[in-house]
């Protein structure tokens, strides 16, 4: 009996203790930790972001690493699957910092996972570059170590409203969006913008992110005589909504949807994709003149060569996060968190991804101020689906297709 108890006690200690082994990185490496949604609903967007990180790492390592004081530091990644769910994010990020000895952090994908991870970055005073997260609230809680690469959520659909005002001021707008933090914040900002521009909003409806049958919502849109649909959410619901609108022959003149149409995979919808627009953080055809790092065309070409697909903005955001961190480390001349934080606070640069500058006031620390969004639209050129930049005028590669069908 006694032996059984001893054995049981040892078994428990072994099981618990087994998870705590330390990993020690080699001296000349910089370890960056993050979680990826390898499984779950955010998988497509999150993997694109991961590809951006990886391309950056491979190119920097091939060029001899990050140069600090004449020494080249190789970059090492440690990452875990967060399953697109926030419940284990804090556990995994704590582990990345305390066991895997991550020097710096990248964010998970999507606003609510980032909000959860941000607490851990703040708790340990670890710099975290957030990409794939646009919601503003996270940056208004008194954080000191967060730095956002994406333009905030309020910018997403405001551009679509501006474009409509110019193109068709009498168009009736239906706002149909996923009932999640990011999409709701975007839709609320779009509605406010519509009011400012006195554009008529005839419908304002949120759907559950897991919705698979949009029939009733589409019927309601048709019933409300909407000309323009603005909204969407993430990849799965966005593609389903787009396909069902096409199947139901909803007579829309213009559809602008979040996130989903940006993915190169969206082209698999065929004719259902034609005319759909997406507010984008970045498009391969933009023409920014970078102060350092690759230019947009080189990045696009390298990405295509490595992964066989066109780079979307999630991938560009991932690469940009690496590039900005790299520059900050080089400027700080070391891995000291405070010095790198100071260097990031001072960042005001243009790279292939566009202008990058962070808010430094305590109320909004880390919020992206410099970056501008563009509006891209799927159009058919010689029977091929291509994504063209249609707004703003300064960056456009084609005219808006209006009405789209």
């Amino acid at each position, binding site marked *: 009996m006694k032996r059984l108890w001893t054995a049981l006690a040892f078994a428990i200690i072994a099981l618990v203790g087994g998870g705590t082994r330390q990993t020690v990185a080699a001296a000349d490496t910089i370890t960056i930790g993050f979680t990826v949604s390898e499984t779950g609903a955010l998988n497509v967007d999150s993997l694109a972001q991961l590809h951006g990180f990886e391309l950056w790492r491979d190119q920097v390592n091939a060029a001899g690493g990050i140069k600090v004081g004449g020494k080249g530091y190789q970059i090492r990644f440690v990452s875990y699957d967060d399953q697109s769910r926030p419940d284990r994010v804090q556990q995994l990020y704590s582990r990345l910092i305390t066991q895997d000895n991550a020097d710096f952090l990248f964010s998970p994908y999507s606003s609510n996972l980032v909000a959860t991870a941000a607490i851990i970055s703040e708790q*340990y005073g670890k710099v975290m570059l957030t990409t794939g997260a646009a919601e503003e609230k996270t940056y208004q809680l008194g954080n000191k170590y967060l730095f956002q690469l994406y333009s905030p959520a309020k910018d997403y659909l405001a551009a679509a409203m501006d474009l409509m005002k110019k193109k068709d001021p009498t168009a009736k707008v239906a706002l149909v969006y996923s009932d999640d933090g990011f999409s709701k914040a975007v839709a609320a900002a779009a509605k406010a913008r519509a009011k400012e521009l006195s554009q008529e909003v005839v419908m304002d409806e949120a759907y559950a992110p897991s919705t698979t049958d949009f029939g009733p919502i589409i019927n309601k849109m048709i019933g409300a005589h909407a000309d323009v649909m603005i909204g969407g959410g993430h990849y799965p619901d966005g593609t389903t909504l787009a396909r069902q609108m096409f199947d139901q022959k909803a007579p829309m003149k213009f559809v602008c949807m979040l996130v989903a149409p940006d993915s190169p995979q969206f082209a698999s919808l065929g004719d259902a994709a034609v005319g759909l627009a997406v507010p984008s953080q970045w498009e391969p055809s933009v023409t920014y003149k970078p102060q350092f790092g690759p230019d947009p065309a080189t990045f696009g070409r390298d990405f295509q060569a490595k992964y066989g697909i066109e780079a979307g903005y999630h991938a560009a955001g991932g690469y940009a996060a690496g590039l900005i961190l790299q520059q900050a480390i080089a400027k700080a001349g070391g891995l000291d968190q405070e010095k790198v934080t100071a260097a990031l606070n001072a960042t005001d640069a243009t790279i292939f991804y566009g202008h990058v500058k962070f808010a430094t006031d305590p109320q909004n620390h880390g919020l992206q101020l410099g970056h501008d969004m563009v509006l891209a639209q799927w159009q058919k050129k010689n029977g091929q689906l291509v994504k063209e930049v249609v707004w703003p005028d300064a960056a456009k590669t084609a005219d808006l297709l209006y009405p789209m069908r």
Partner: protein
Amino acid sequence: MSLLRQPMLWLILGAMALFAGLPGFGGDVALREGLFLTAIAIILASNLNLMIGYTGYVNFGNIVFFGLGGYFGVWLTTMHGWPLVPAAIVAAILVSTIALFFGLGILRLRGSYFTLATIGINEAVRALVSNIDAWGGSTGMYLSVSVYQPLGGPRQALWIVYFLVIGIMGASLFLSWFIRRSKFGLGLFAIREDEDAASVLGVHPALYKSVIYSVSGFLPAMAGALFFFKNGVIQPDQAFDLTMSTEAIVMLMLGGQGSVTGAAVGAFLYDQLRSTLLTSSMFSQFQLVIAGILLLLIVLFVPGGLIGWIGERWPRLRRVLE
């Protein structure tokens, strides 16, 4: 003192000491984070055991207590500046009161109808909360870093929350154990075996069921308040996540329903397995597949759960592992 001679008492105290001591002494934060989630799992499974294991009513929407407790807790601490502990206690009282009213309504249903109603409650509460603007609607509420200041900054606050959760874990196990040994518990077992016969024998099923439904919500609500306080953000999708409800049921099946140790051991093993698979470089790609296969095997071949199986092999242990 007969209580002091009960092995169960020492088992529970020992488990609490291990949970608090292992990360506490070395200051091992990664271990703490792992055990924190395990402790939450044990709290959820133990309290669910009161419904499923003791009373025979499958509550599929048990996570509603946890989520609602979280909402009340976060609301009181952030919007009204309450200290954490009173906020958690008041949240639990509110949730239990609400549960009592729900219970009086839905516990007239039996079997799968009851189960469906519990899912309905969870979904209804989620939809309701998503539309309460004072609670942030579907974006939820975000905690400012400054709420951790009264507890000595975020680092120390998370340790305090951890020890509080260990306390609630111990309380859950003691609650399960005391109810199991009480006359009230016997009444619940009678309802589980045959509700009609029980009422003929003088048990008042409607009252008993409502009370246990409400009681089984108290500690999970407190745990929810602490969990989301630590989490820093609360959103309807995370607070009322049916997957967590289902997982709690799986934990019960794994350990053995109806038994105090069964619920705890099942929760411990399940949660450790999940987090080990998730972080192992070899299995992380198909950790869900492995977890699924393992659970299938257990349910097929060891339907009584781990503790049930041990009890069959070594009947003498049955008196120890209640």
